[in-house]
């Protein structure tokens, strides 16, 4: 069992996925409402197994001879991704119910995706990383087009698939070129090779291709064109899943690859990432401004956040020490929590039908559902960067780290981009509070407590993370307070 424990986090989701699939076939129709419940329990187990595995192999953390590593970094992402998947399943159950779609496959796909994401977070080898990324991408392609009678879903899935597979090809080609010059795909071997050997053009070419492939996956401008369509076509829970879990997982990969493997090649990629960051921040924010569909707006806003995170990645290269990683993880945490809250609320609001996703449909929310509107307003204010909310401190910490790495220009652009972002976030708040209720408004029939609770928890977490960030600052290489607390309550 001890030998098996480290592999549980990656294999448990596969197991649960298969169980859900089988249950979907063999369970009588009447009892299939149980499937989401089973899945939720499954995700909780995955999260617990991640903690147990971390404890079992600590402090070294390496397994499979260094192919995988279970350090605090991967633990952080495992927990974050499990939470995101948990919330997605929660909101998905309402959406599947509404559209009369088959539940089992959907939930199984989420499980497979989770498995891939956990692998992404803990892998230290380019090939493993690629396989993990493909597992994630494949599941998400299908999830986007899950409602196969919906034209928009088809369009989104198709675009996403075409561009995504091209990105994968580029990535793989880059990996091949790198292997050609280093003769290894292990990140630390690449690092040690380039810190002693001369940098060959082959390696630079490979690195560039890997970067472009990853830029596609995180939707950095100008490789972002798939994301608004995919976001719009997907159902609300899946959009939320892509904006939170998938994005966080790809960043886990990006930070690991650039910070660990290619740090000795930094002269090649720092400027590329900086240019991408500038384009992404400005492009995302300017395009978000013109959107009327809330999903598209959130897609562009998520692109903009990608841009801020990319500035943090340049700091990773210029400055030794964990501070940049800590700032990045803190930013990701806040971004994921805020987005999860927003998408949970939107899932509920659009639970009548998927067409209620124009920004103007939120009119009068402040009067009709004051608590939901308050939660949403809090999260949007956090995105704008109003202290003492988490979004503010995330920006504060990230920008400070980037400034410390002497990237004044990047931070200047980031501040300019944040000024642009005020407009469209604020407009949503204004629509919610300062417009009368829309006439064609159909009130959602259901009022699920669970989604309300998600919104409440996320809002509170974002508030608390900003108010007392001292506990979150230890995220890397910490997260120890959480672990100690878990130990204290004898959960593990």
């Amino acid at each position, binding site marked *: 069992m001890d030998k098996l424990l480290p592999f549980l986090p990656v294999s448990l989701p596969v197991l649960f996925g298969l169980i859900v699939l089988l249950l979907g076939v063999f369970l009588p129709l009447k009892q299939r409402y149980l499937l989401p419940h089973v899945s939720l329990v499954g995700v909780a187990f995955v999260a617990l197994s991640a903690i147990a595995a971390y404890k079992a192999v600590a402090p070294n953390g390496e397994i499979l001879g260094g192919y995988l590593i279970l350090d605090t970094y991967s633990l952080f992402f495992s927990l974050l991704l499990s939470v995101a998947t948990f919330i997605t399943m929660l909101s998905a159950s309402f959406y599947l119910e509404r559209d009369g779609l088959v539940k089992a496959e959907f939930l199984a796909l989420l499980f497979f995706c989770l498995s891939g994401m956990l692998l992404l977070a803990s892998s230290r080898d380019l090939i493993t990383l690629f396989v993990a990324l493909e597992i994630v991408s494949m599941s998400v392609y299908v999830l986007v087009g899950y409602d196969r009678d919906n034209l928009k879903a088809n369009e989104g899935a198709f675009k996403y698939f075409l561009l995504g597979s091209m990105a994968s090809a580029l990535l793989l080609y880059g990996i091949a070129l790198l292997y050609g010059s280093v003769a290894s795909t292990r990140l630390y071997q690449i690092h040690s090779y380039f810190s002693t050997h001369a940098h060959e053009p082959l390696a630079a070419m490979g690195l560039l291709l890997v970067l472009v492939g990853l830029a596609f996956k995180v939707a950095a401008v100008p490789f972002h064109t798939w994301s608004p369509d995919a976001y719009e076509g997907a159902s609300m829970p899946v959009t939320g899943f892509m904006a939170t879990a998938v994005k966080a997982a790809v960043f886990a990969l990006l930070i690991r690859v650039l910070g660990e493997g290619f740090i000795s090649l930094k002269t090649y990629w720092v400027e590329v990432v900086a240019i991408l960051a500038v384009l992404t921040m400005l492009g995302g924010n300017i395009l978000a401004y013109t959107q009327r569909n809330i999903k598209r707006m959130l897609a562009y806003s998520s692109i903009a956040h990608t841009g801020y995170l990319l500035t943090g990645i340049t700091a990773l290269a210029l400055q030794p020490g964990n501070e940049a990683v800590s700032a990045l993880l803190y930013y990701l945490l806040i971004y994921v929590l805020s987005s999860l809250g927003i998408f949970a609320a939107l899932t509920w609001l659009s639970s009548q039908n998927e067409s209620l996703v124009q920004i103007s449909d939120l009119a009068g929310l402040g009067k009709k559902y004051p608590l939901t509107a308050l939660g949403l307003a809090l999260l949007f204010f956090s995105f704008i960067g*109003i202290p003492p909310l988490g979004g503010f401190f995330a920006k504060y910490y990230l920008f400070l780290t980037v400034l*410390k790495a002497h990237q004044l220009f990047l*931070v200047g652009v980031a*501040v300019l981009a944040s000024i642009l972002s005020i*407009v469209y976030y604020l407009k949503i708040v204004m629509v919610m*509070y300062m417009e009368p209720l829309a006439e064609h408004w159909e009130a959602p029939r259901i009022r699920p407590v669970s989604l309300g609770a998600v919104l409440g928890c996320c809002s509170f977490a974002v508030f608390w993370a900003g108010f007392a960030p001292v506990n979150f600052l230890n995220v890397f290489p910490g997260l120890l307070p959480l672990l100690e607390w878990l130990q204290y309550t004898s959960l593990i």
Partner: protein
Amino acid sequence: MNHLLSLLIFLPLVGGLVLLALSRKFASVVKPAALGIALINLLLAALVGFRFQPQAGFQMEEKLAWIPKMGIEYHLAIDGISLFLVLLIPIFILIALCMAQFSKNAYPPAFFALLLCFEAGLLGTTLALNLFLFYLFWELMLIPAFFLIGLWGGPKRKPAVLKFVIYTMAGSLVFLLSILFLGVQFYSKTGEWSFALPQLYQLRMGMGPVASLLFFGFALAFLIKVPLFPLHTWLPDTYSEAPTIVTFLLSGLMAKMGIYGLLRITIPLFPQLLERWAPLLSLLAIAGIVYGAIAALGQTNLKRLIAYSSLSHMSLLVLGVFTWNLASLQGTLYHMINHAVATGALFLLVSLIEEHYGTTEIAELGGLAKETPLFASLFLLMTFASIGVPGLNGFVGEFLILLGVTTQVPLLGLGAGLTLILSAAYMLWLTQRLLFGPLKSPVAEPLKLCRYRQIVLAPLVLAVVLMGLYTQPVFERTTASVRQYLQMLHQPQQVSEPTLLSDTLPASEAQIHG
């Protein structure tokens, strides 16, 4: 009672938030409770004023580690420069709450609760001595203002409030960038993070271009809030679209926060750069005085007219700040109160006109003196205070500022003095059109000042008269602090240029590069 200042901030903040939560279900309780909280806060502020010791500099300090790893602490203190703002804020909030209570517009309970939150932001900004904390309260001020204008403003409130928030947030974000940059400078010099103002004051920046950029980064947010010409374009729309009671607070209190920020943060951080940039800013201030006055002459709407007059007068304060000698600083502090009282009172009187006659167009009104002599005499008194008739408070402040400016740069003083005549022109013309001449009124009933409103307005009238005749109580308390402040500015210190690039690299990184 060591936590008097915290109590001063958090009583209205917590009270406001609780009342906001209750405002739906327990509407009847909220309004009296809000008035009660504001009254208690006024008493607390009075206690602070009573305990204040003029010679002691920063006092009643409160310090708590908040995020020690990054040098962020909860640090409050009060000195002679902030004292009168701390006294002014609770009085104005209480007046605004009372006016809202007796208003026929039936403001909902949430309005009262938000006013309390606004008060907390204002007080926090005035008392904070850590840049992080200052920024927090600075932004906290904006959110209630956003909702107050956006929910209860005039017909064009939405574009107005959007403009207002974008302007102020843009300034704030640049301010944030400057804070971060300064923090990094401090870190690269000392090896530890700190955002405490007293420590950052020691970090004297040089005269280079980076320091100049930083100076403007720190000034921009405040100059927008004041606002200084040409950053003023949000002001007329916001002031005229906001509910007039809120405009009273915006011009009376929030604009003062800009001046206070300049005094507390921008100038002490960059005393070397003042010599270089003060002429430019002073010229802009004079341009603002002239521009505001000329624009006011052309207005047909009462609210907009007073908004532009407020702009004109605020520019005079900026001029006083950027002259930074004893007379002008004393004058600025004094005139901050004067302007708040006179312009604030004018806005309140306009709110009565708006409520009673349903219009603020000057052309639709006239000869009000015949109808409501009491109202007319109040309006006239405030007009005189605003244009600086000797014997009223406005004269003292303007005189001191002009004295300070003239001793430093005679030509500038002359210019400012001459342009102030313009304020007499538009205000007197306004009173002539509004109060005298044949009676014009859209409604049959005359405007009556009920007893409650007379009581509410009484403190403002008293302030106008008393502060014009008996200035000692104020100057007694500010002089020592202003002297210390000036000493700090003129202290010779080691000056070092802020740096952008590699020469401040941490040692480990430098080795890698080497």
